[in-house]
């Protein structure tokens, strides 16, 4: 099995090899791995990679998967343009 040919995060093109490397280097939460590898920061926001990474962490560190937290999710859900935020305020804003 070549770990460098197995993609874990499709949005950011991160491989199993990179994820395992990160875990071995002590980054053992999904949040930490996200910060150093950008997994889960693409358009799908971790929907493909989240569970796969959780399982890797569980297997390598021996932590039961029930104890592994998903990454934090903050608003907004999905991309938004500043224009769209401002549209709502409408006339009240000085251009």
């Amino acid at each position: 099995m070549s770990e460098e040919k197995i993609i874990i995060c499709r949005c950011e093109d991160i491989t199993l090899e990179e994820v395992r490397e990160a875990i071995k280097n002590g980054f053992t939460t999904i949040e930490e791995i996200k910060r150093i590898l950008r997994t889960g920061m693409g358009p799908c926001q971790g929907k493909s990679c989240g569970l796969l990474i959780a399982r890797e962490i569980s297997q390598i560190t021996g932590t039961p998967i029930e104890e592994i937290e998903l990454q934090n999710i903050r608003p907004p859900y999905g991309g938004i343009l500043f224009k769209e935020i401002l549209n709502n305020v409408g006339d009240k804003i000085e251009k």
Partner: protein
Amino acid sequence: MDNIENVELIVVGGGPAGLSAALAASDYGIKVVLAEEREFLGGQLIKQTHRFFGSEKEYAGTRGIDILKRLIEDVKNREDIKILASSRVLGIYEDNVVTILNNNKMKKYIPQAIILATGASEKFLAFENNDLPGVFGAGAVQTLMNVYGVLPAKKILMVGSGNIGLIVSYQLLQAGVSVAAVIEAAPKIGGYSVHASKLKRLGIPILTSHTIKKAVGNKKVEGAIICELDNNWQEIKDTEEFIECDAICLSVGLTPLIDLLKQRKVKTVYVSELGGYIPLRDENMETSIMNLFVAGDVSGIEEATAAMIEGQISGLTVAKRINKNQKEEIQRKIEEAKKELVLLRSGPVGEKIRKGLSKIGLNHGENYDESILKEEFDISYLMKTGVPSKENLESKFPKDKKIFDKGPIAISECFQKFPCDPCVKSCPFNAISENGNINNIPYVDFEKCTGCRICVSKCPGLAMFVVHKNYTETSSLITMPYEFLPRPKKGELVNVYDRDGKIICEGKVIKILDSSFQDKTAAVSVEVPKEHFLEARNFKVRYLKHE
């Protein structure tokens, strides 16, 4: 803050759960804002061209797309439901403000209650070259095919034998795509046996204890390497096999789409039986945040029927809380819906769901009728191969073989306990019974059965056949469900297959029932040599290639 609108209820997601929730709440005068991310309502139902299982009350036997039409029509007729299509809910904040992007504008709402019915997303699988073009999720394949009319490939390898994998494989065949095989890592088939048998009769291999190692191809998928697994899910040496295909379809499960719940900091837990991280919630579908409810797959992966009932429960609970009147009536309806759910989950296939629910403190098990929990007979062979064993079949054939001489009789080849009853409800002569519990296996009362063939088209599992042993001196007439195009013509010669998908003889088409009553599942009667009357269970029109 004059641009914040106060509303009674926001429902997020216009799939079966969301639509049912909105309808149930508006039944009691609640004003609902229904936000759907896409430009159309319906969620996953828009691609479910197959008939649904479940209880007739919740539309079983009806095609998903037709259930959807009814729900949408109903929703559109309600003045109390405001539909926001193409509207993505972007944020649910701690002060209860909900922001929705609609028409390029961020709108803000303060609802008295929220029901999140955001559904699920597909799980992904780690194997070599899993980023090659041609690696699809089963949901994507179904969307391409059934919503947009685009063929995803010529020959597909299906990974995963849950209901979605089995159903999508069958639909691919209907669309003219060949299916190289369905592989399943577990030692047994994940979906309902009737779905597996349908594929098996078409000659599709179902390989349990097999997994995909690698996608092969240069710029796109040209094949796959699969291998066998042992009891500990470890690869067995020297079992690698190359399968030629131009697409690999992943159907390895769904996981709840909980992003919005996480935003609001709802408590979530990992429950593998329910698909991954799920929100903690009570029996009324309320989460750890008061007035924030969930319904459908976002609360744990289950079937669409359960999603619709959960939608009703959450919608009614909101109505009960906001509405000052009719409380008793609403409460009664909630109790009824809960009973319905308990019934749906009460058989052996509901065990996983029950186990998952008990992990979040919902003890669905207390009222279970123990006798229903166990399978009636050993179906391990069936669940490994998709083909019923001899003993299984014997149990459903008339004990007294002379009954075959009385004329055409229905044979039910449904061997698994799961919540489904369209056969029972369809028979005008009350000849099919499940003994009062939808999870029981249906049996035909051969004395009452007139051989009318109605049930053949009505069973969503294509498990009902009508057998007329003594059609002539030398031949029998077998009426089988048929869902492929082109249709056979009267008098045409067809190839007849057994339950294993092996060709056994030639048959002649004698009669075709294919009106609107059959709703696209034709009942085709084929004359076969008498010695095959217990084996002939499928046929193919000759100029149509499924291979």
